[in-house]
């Protein structure tokens, strides 16, 4: 039982990070119908910037701030400079552009910081808490990870559901032409959407950095798991991304704990197929009405 609880706790922590990456993908997909393959590269780059701050003696929190701010900027610039010109073209163009951006970021990081992974400090101790004499697989840092992701989710929910700006963001995503007629600056909304998504991604990067280390290819798996979580959730639903992330985190934790850690990637694939067999559009996909 203790083992199950521990695996679940570890799964939730990991799942929170997957959820953040998934959310970054979902935000962009909703706004621009582009799967941002550069997301892994973007969060790798911002985490490297944060690592540089820590390496030069800056505090953890300053580094986190740098990562988030640079995420905002990279996201906005990527949309405005690279994605905007291919918008409205064949979907494959945007795929190639984001893949190209990923390769570019990876190569640039390798040139600037080298290919050797660097360690990254956690914000708090990673020593597990104890409850009734048993050591739990949940550390103060894990709690921070869960809390940080939860906070960002709550802030985004308030932004999208409760504010006029969020309404415009949603309107621009649903029907850009109509939104334009209602006076919405659609272009700005798309740029902002990308910036917000990249910010969420950069948070995920910093949070996962202590366990995967910081290197040009260290975050590739994050994109794969984040994408899996997003698809499980239905790609169009932010709530689905969160649930998908948590489910995937737990599933992978059970696979590695009860079976073998070699099978984790396989487990992700199995989870994806299982969900898509039952709900082809993902768990939280809006029901598409059938026209007769």
């Amino acid at each position: 039982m203790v083992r199950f609880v521990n695996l679940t706790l570890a799964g939730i922590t990991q799942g929170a990070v997957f959820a953040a990456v998934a959310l970054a993908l979902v935000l962009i997909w909703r706004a621009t119908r582009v799967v941002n393959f550069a997301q892994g590269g973007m969060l790798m780059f911002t985490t490297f910037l944060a690592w540089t701050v820590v390496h030069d003696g800056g505090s953890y929190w300053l580094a986190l701030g740098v990562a988030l701010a640079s995420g905002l900027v990279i996201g906005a610039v990527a949309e405005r400079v690279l994605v905007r010109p291919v918008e409205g073209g064949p979907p494959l163009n945007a795929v190639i552009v984001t893949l190209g951006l990923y390769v570019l970021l990876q190569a640039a990081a390798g040139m600037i910081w080298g290919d050797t992974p660097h360690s990254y400090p956690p914000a708090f101790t990673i020593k597990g808490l104890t409850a009734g004499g048993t050591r739990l697989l949940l550390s103060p840092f894990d709690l921070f990870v869960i809390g940080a992701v939860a906070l960002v989710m709550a802030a985004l929910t308030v932004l999208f559901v409760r504010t006029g700006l969020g309404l415009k963001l949603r309107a621009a995503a649903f029907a850009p032409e109509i939104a334009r007629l209602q006076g919405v600056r659609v272009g700005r909304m798309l740029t902002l959407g990308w910036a917000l998504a990249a910010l969420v991604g950069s948070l995920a990067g910093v949070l996962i950095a202590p366990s995967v280390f910081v290197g040009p290819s260290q975050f590739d798996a994050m994109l794969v798991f984040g994408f899996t979580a997003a698809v499980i959730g239905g790609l169009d639903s932010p709530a689905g991304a969160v649930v998908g992330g948590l489910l995937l985190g737990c599933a992978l934790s059970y696979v590695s704990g009860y079976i073998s850690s070699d099978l984790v990637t396989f487990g992700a694939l199995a989870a994806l197929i299982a969900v898509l067999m039952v709900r082809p559009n993902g768990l939280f996909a809006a029901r598409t009405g059938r026209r007769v």
Partner: protein
Amino acid sequence: MSGGPSQPLELREVTVRFGGLVALEKVSLSAPPGRVTGVIGPNGAGKTTLFNVVCGFVRPRSGEVRWRGRPLVRHRPHRLTRLGIARTLQGLGLFPGLTVLENVMVGADRHARAGLVSGLLALPRADRDDAALRERAMARLDELGVAGEAARRPGELPYGAQKRVALARALVADPDLLLLDEPAAGLSAAEIEELAALIRGLRGGPAVVLVEHHMDLVMGVCDQVVVLDFGRVIAAGPPAEVRDDPAVLDAYLGEEVRDA
């Protein structure tokens, strides 16, 4: 704001070509405030193109559109609400994923002053704006008799009710010019009656331009009618006069006249 709403919308010799096709040929018309101007004509006569020119979706090859006493040049669709122009779309043009209330709130944006930054940070001013927006949107929905559906998605409502929501969204910005693109399409006879009453109720308010196929509606609510055929104005004047104009009969009911 110079000019002000007392000036009419004016088109002066507007010409639009798509490749070799002439969509509008030296079209001139004037839509005074407080009155309903109907634009009619057979399919392909250029009615929707005319709206698209006013909205900035299509740039005329020559001629000019004047609004508030100034020529409209290089205006972009997203500036329309700020210019006091609202447009309903052929069909519905509602956001399927937003609630009825949210759909109308998007249209009320003209009155929201909070900028991007204060909106992002949910500063008090943005919050106040948001509450005011919600209130205005609710008031419009109430006027149009669909306030009870505020929390539902447009797709869950009957077509007639969705049309009302679309109209509420166009009116919520208090436009000085309202462009109605075939509002009667898809409505039942009873619903068209209601629509006619709604449009008549707008008299004395904004300048209304109505593009419509439905003759009874046009003749029943318009103060003046402009008839387009193959991109040209072939008649203009009060409904009763236009109805009996031989050129109009020829364009609209051509075969009948020729047969007669």
